[in-house]
C-alpha cells in the first residue's frame, strides 16, 4: 500500500481488572480506505474503536493520529480529525434532531468562531446525506431506533472528520437504509473504520481486520481474509462463495458448522438466515 497511514496503533493492549480485552494489536489505517473490523461477539471490536478514538487509554502501546501520539493531542484537535458513531448513545433530553446533529459542529466552534451559516449548511447537508431531512424538527424521543442511528451518523458527518469510526452503524437499520448508509459512508472522501457484523457487507470494504478474543488474527483484502478456513476457525461457521449472476460480485453463503444444512444458521448470533434444505 502506497497511501500514507493516517491512524495507526502498535502493540496495543487493554485490560479491565484482570480481563485482557485486547492484546498486541498492530494496525495501520491508510488514507481514504474503508477498513472493516469483523469478529464474533466480545472479540473487542468496540473496544478497539474506543481506543483508536482516544476514548479509552490503552494499558500498553500507543495510538498515533497522523503521526502524532493521541495522548499528546487535545481532545478538540482529535475531534477535528476524527468522528465516532457509538453503538448505544441515548439521551433523556427531548432534543430536536437538528440540534442533535448540530452538536457535531462543537469541535469547530469557539468564542472567536461562533455558529455561522456555513455550520448551518453543513448540518443540513449531513441530514440530507443520511436521508433524514424530513426528521429535522422531530424530537429525539419520538424517533425509532433506525432513525436515531441515522441522526448519530449525521452528527458524525456534520463534524466533517477526515477519519470516521463507526461501531456497527447498520445495527438498527432496515435493509434499505443499511445499504444506503454503507453507500454514503463509502462514497465519502474520508478514511473509514467500520465495525460490522454482516460478513457480506464486510466484503464491500477495502480491507478487513479480523478480531478473535482480543487478538488481530487476520488483516487484508476481504476475499483473502475471509477464507473458509478463517470462517470456521474464528466464526465457527461453514462458508463458501457464490457469484452473483447480476454483477459478478462474490457472495458469502454461510451455514452452521455443527449442524447440517437445512437448518437455521447464524453468522454471529445476530444475522439469522433461513437456509433451504439441499
Amino acid at each position, binding site marked *: 500500500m502506497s497511501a500514507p497511514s493516517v491512524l495507526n496503533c502498535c502493540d496495543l493492549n487493554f485490560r479491565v481488572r484482570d480481563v485482557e480485552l485486547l492484546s498486541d494489536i498492530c494496525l495501520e489505517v491508510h488514507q481514504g480506505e474503508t477498513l472493516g473490523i469483523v469478529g464474533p461477539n466480545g472479540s473487542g471490536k468496540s473496544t478497539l474503536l474506543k481506543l483508536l478514538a482516544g476514548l479509552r487509554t490503552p494499558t500498553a502501546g500507543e495510538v498515533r493520529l497522523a503521526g502524532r501520539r493521541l495522548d499528546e493531542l487535545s*481532545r*478538540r484537535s482529535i475531534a477535528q480529525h476524527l468522528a465516532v458513531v*457509538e453503538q448505544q*448513545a441515548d439521551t433523556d*433530553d427531548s432534543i430536536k434532531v437538528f440540534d442533535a446533529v448540530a*452538536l*457535531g459542529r462543537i469541535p469547530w466552534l469557539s468564542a472567536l468562531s461562533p455558529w455561522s451559516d456555513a455550520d448551518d449548511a453543513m448540518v443540513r447537508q449531513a441530514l440530507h446525506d443520511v436521508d433524514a431531512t424530513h426528521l429535522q424538527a422531530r424530537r429525539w424521543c419520538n424517533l425509532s431506533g433506525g432513525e436515531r442511528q441515522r441522526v448519530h451518523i449525521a452528527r458524525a458527518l456534520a463534524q466533517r472528520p477526515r477519519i470516521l469510526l463507526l461501531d456497527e452503524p447498520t445495527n438498527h437499520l432496515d435493509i434499505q437504509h443499511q445499504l444506503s448508509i454503507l453507500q454514503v459512508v463509502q462514497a465519502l472522501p474520508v478514511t473509514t473504520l467500520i465495525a460490522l457484523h454482516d460478513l457480506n457487507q464486510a466484503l464491500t470494504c477495502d480491507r478487513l481486520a479480523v478480531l478473535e478474543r482480543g487478538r488481530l488474527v487476520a488483516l487484508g483484502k476481504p476475499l483473502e481474509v475471509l477464507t473458509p478456513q478463517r470462517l470456521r476457525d474464528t466464526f465457527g461457521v461453514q462458508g463458501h462463495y457464490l457469484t452473483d449472476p447480476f454483477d459478478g460480485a462474490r457472495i458469502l453463503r454461510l451455514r452452521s458448522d455443527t449442524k447440517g444444512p437445512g437448518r437455521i444458521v447464524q453468522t454471529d448470533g445476530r444475522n439469522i438466515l433461513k437456509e433451504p434444505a439441499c
Partner: protein
Amino acid sequence: MMTTLVRTLLACATLLITVILGVSIGETAIEPSVVFQALANKLWAAGHVLDPIDEGIVWNYRLPRALVAAACGAGLATCGVILQSLLRNPLADPYLLGISAGASTGAVLVALLGVGAGMVSLSAGAFLGAVTAFALVMVLARASGPPSGTGQIILAGIAGSQLFNALTAFLITKSASSEQARGIMFWLLGNLSGVRWPAVWLTVPVAVAGLAVCLWHRRALDAFTFGVDSAAALGVPVRQVQCVLIGCAALVTAVMVSIVGSIGFVGLVIPHAARLLLGTGHARLLPASALGGAVFLIAADVLSRTLIKGQVIPVGVITALVGAPVFAMILIGRRNAR
C-alpha cells in the same frame, strides 16, 4: 427572531421588576414609587423626602433580602442545570445529591466549633462539607453500580443526605445551647431573615461568576447530551470540564447554604421548566434558569413573609411546598411528551 441583546434586556427588566415588587410587598406595603425614590436617595442622593422608617425598611431589610434571594435562586438553578447535564440525570440537584446537606454540616461545624469567624469561613466550611459529601456520594454510586446507572447516584445521594443530616443533628445536640440549636434548625430549613448587605456582597458575585463560568462551558454542556464518551468524541476535555463545573456547583451551593441554609427544589424544578419552555441548548437554558430561579425565590420569600400574618415561614418550606407538586407535574408531562 429576537436578538440576544433584546433577550438580555428583557431578562434584566424582568429581574428588576421582580426585585422592586419583592421590596414593595410585605407586612408594611410600600409603594413601588417610594421604593424607587428610596433607591434614588441612597444611590445618587436624589433628596426625595421620605418616611425614614420606610426608607430604612427598603434599604436595610427588604432590598438586601430580595437581592440575596435572587442570587440564591439563580445560583441554585444554575447548579441544577449543570448537575443534570453532567451526570445525565434528570433528578440531579444540589439538594438531592447531598451537596446541600454536606454544606450544612460544614457550616454548622464552623459555627459551633468557631473555627475562624465571620461569613467567609462559614462559607469555606460549607464548601469543604459540600465537596466531601459530593465525593462520598460519587464513590458510593460508583461502587454500587455501573457509572451510567441513573438511579444509583440518586440513591447514593439519599444515603449521603441522611448521613450528613444526622451528623448535623448530632453536632447540634452535642455542642449547641438550646438557643443556638433553635437558630440553627431554623436556618437549616432555609431562612432569609437575617441577611443584610454583607450577604449581598458575597452571594451576588458568586451567583454571577458561577453563571459566567457555566456559560463559558455551554457548548461542552451541550456535548454531554449523549453521554460522556460522546462528549469526549466531540472534543470536550471531559475530566477537566467535570472538575471545573462540579467544583463550581459545589462552591455556589456552599456559599448559598452558608448564607440562607438549604433550600430545596429550586435546582430541580426551575431547570426542568426552562427546558420545557426553551429546549435543551445551554446558551439559552442557563440564563433562563438563572432568571427563573431568581424570580422564583423572590416570590417564595414574599410568600414566606406574607402567608401567615406576623410570622415568617422558612423559605425552604415554601419552595418545597410549591416545588414538589410542580416537579410531579413535570415528571408526568415528560412522560406524556414521549
